[in-house]
């Protein structure tokens, strides 16, 4: 699977080659130098030299001997998982979640702190720098062993600047998350939207086969859609694949801040559900909803929780949102001929099963390919921090396989 693309991509640069060989060792579990020669197509002398460098860097260890094929028994190599770590950070209105994984992708710690809320971006980035100190101190991880930080956040990527364009977070527009965090932390930073990170996290954590394409629909305050094809993230012309929140579902629908009309976000995002909930007589008082912009996520959780417990008005509100999300999902499935869709993100934490039911009904009953293959819709466990774990995976991938760098000119 991934090995084929690794071999194809081995370039002349020694850094790239080293990264590719390290990835081969990682994906092989244990492997001998001779096997690396066969897998990579490099010469024995090159492999010997690269492996020596990897061992000296502490990234790879010799773990014993393989079976003899006639001569001397070969020494086996494997990744030294605790030699390096990656940090994933999910920037979200409600919480900042940091996930730290070792070189093998295993979670070694997670930190949760206050969300971005209405805080100014510069203040958040400053806070993140302090929280990174706290995180690494608490996990007793030396900064020098951190390969990088992956950041998952909503919004577009405008080249080196991260734009977080949404209704009430204008200050995040054009704020360079990646550059600011790289400067304050002194570590390489890779940024990706939260839906894409969740999809990558699903791929790594779920041990999915690279042959299986899937999409992850992510709901936090807005929507995103990460698409994984042949084991890698689909990127598009500017690394902005998956803006499903601006799929138009009603051509004459309510105007959207993006300039269009009838976008999914205007029809079905938590903000819309809450504005509808505020119009239901007595509901705000009953559930303690404030209706204020800063409380959208909190209010949405309350409505979701009540819906999950069968509160009739809340079930209707959530189903109203879910019907639009289902139509958008159906279109994605039809467009890409997917056989698997994941629902992830904090927006599904409370009323996820209701969304799942409505989306399954729509996709199962209406997908163009329904007579040819099943389309599975799966709800990810929101406690798994898919976006943060995926962001750590991205940072890891970038350092292990430089050819796969999420590069932008």
């Amino acid at each position, binding site marked *: 699977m991934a090995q084929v693309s690794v071999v194809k991509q081995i370039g002349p640069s020694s850094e790239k080659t080293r990264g590719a060989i390290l990835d081969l060792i990682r994906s092989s579990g244990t492997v001998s130098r001779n096997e690396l020669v066969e897998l990579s197509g490099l010469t024995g002398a090159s492999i010997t030299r690269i492996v020596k460098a990897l061992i000296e860097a502490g990234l790879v260890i010799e773990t014993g001997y393989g079976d003899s094929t006639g001569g001397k028994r070969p020494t086996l190599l494997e990744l030294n998982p605790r030699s390096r770590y990656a940090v994933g950070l999910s920037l979200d209105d409600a919480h900042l979640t940091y996930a730290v994984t070792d070189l093998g992708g295993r*979670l070694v710690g997670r930190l*949760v*702190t206050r969300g971005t809320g209405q805080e100014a971006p510069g203040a958040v980035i400053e806070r993140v720098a302090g929280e990174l100190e706290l995180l690494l101190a608490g996990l007793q991880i030396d900064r020098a062993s951190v390969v990088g930080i992956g950041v998952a956040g909503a919004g577009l990527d405008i080249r080196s600047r991260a734009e977080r364009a949404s209704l009430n977070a204008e200050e995040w527009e054009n704020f360079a998350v990646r550059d600011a965090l790289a400067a304050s932390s002194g570590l390489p930073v890779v940024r990706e939207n939260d839906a894409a990170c969740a999809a990558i996290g699903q791929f790594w954590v779920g041990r999915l086969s690279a042959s299986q394409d899937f999409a992850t629909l992510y709901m936090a305050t807005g929507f995103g859609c990460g698409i994984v094809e042949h084991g890698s993230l689909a990127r598009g012309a500017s690394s902005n694949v998956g803006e499903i929140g601006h799929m138009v579902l009603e051509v004459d629908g309510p105007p959207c801040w993006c300039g269009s009309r009838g976008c999914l976000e205007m029809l079905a995002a938590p903000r819309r559900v809450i504005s509808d909930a505020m119009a239901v007589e007595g509901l705000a008082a009953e559930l303690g909803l404030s209706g204020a912009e800063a409380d959208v996520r909190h209010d949405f959780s309350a409505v979701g929780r009540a819906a999950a417990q069968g509160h009739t008005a809340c079930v209707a509100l959530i189903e109203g949102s879910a019907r639009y999300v289902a139509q958008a999902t159906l279109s994605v499935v039809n467009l890409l001929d997917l056989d698997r869709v994941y629902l992830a993100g904090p927006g599904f934490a409370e009323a996820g099963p209701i969304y799942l039911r409505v989306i399954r009904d729509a996709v199962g009953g209406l997908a163009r390919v329904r007579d040819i293959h099943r389309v599975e819709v799966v709800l990810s466990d929101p406690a798994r921090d898919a976006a943060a774990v995926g962001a750590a995976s991205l940072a890891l991938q970038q350092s292990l396989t430089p050819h796969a760098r999420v590069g932008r000119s």
Partner: protein
Amino acid sequence: MRARSVSRGVPHYGEQMNGVGLVLVGDVLAADPVISALVHSLGEAVSEAGLPFLARVVDDADSELDVYHAWHASGAPDAVVVIPAEADDARVALLTRLRIPVVALTHEEHLPGVSAVVLDDDAAADELAAFLDRRGYRDVLYAPDGAGASDASDLRDSAFARLGGRVRALDDATPQAVARAVAEAVAPAAVVAADATAAVAIIAAIRETGRSVPGDAGVLSWNDSLLCRTSDPTITALDRRATEIGRLLGECVLRVTAGGELGRLPAPRAGVAARESA
């Protein structure tokens, strides 16, 4: 312990571990939906009040004690949460000696004087026993398998004691063996599977033998999880109220870090979430 800054909105971090800490041994966050849900809601409750919440994963119990020593040496967290804590818990004893405030998830008779959320396993066991009685199950089989089983042996023992001689723990808990045991049991039988994944496999195996679920046999999961709520059929499960317990632990921690009086809060009582499989 370092005094926290006066304003909660502007925490100052240095080379020290402040905030609230939790150490988990082994890969429980991935393997155990009950622990995972509890840790998630605990983290939300603590962080929403402006305190950072750090969960650290270590390989073994000795490493856990080493972490507390290291945290103490580097400035000490505002509080540490221990889940679950037993009688004479070595971790609670160490943290107390290090003067790090502790909040435990434990049982009424354990660790008097320690701030805690207190589980009532007897009440939970009664709920399970009453549910099985109400549904008229005559033979109850327990299939102790599955990677996602929480360590809830007290609760399980207590539940089984209340079911008298009707409960049999199966030696071979593979789905096929469970299906054979169902075929030989006094109908209608109930199977308590260790978790949702096991329950799904057992339901499939029972249906392969030509029997129906829940008609001929009911299948329950010892742990509630997302899979229980979204599988087909949906799976009846023991709801241990992990999310609410996490929030309560969070409240308890905040009380302790604010210098409030020590408290013991009763955990919401576990119950049976009745769904399609039993």
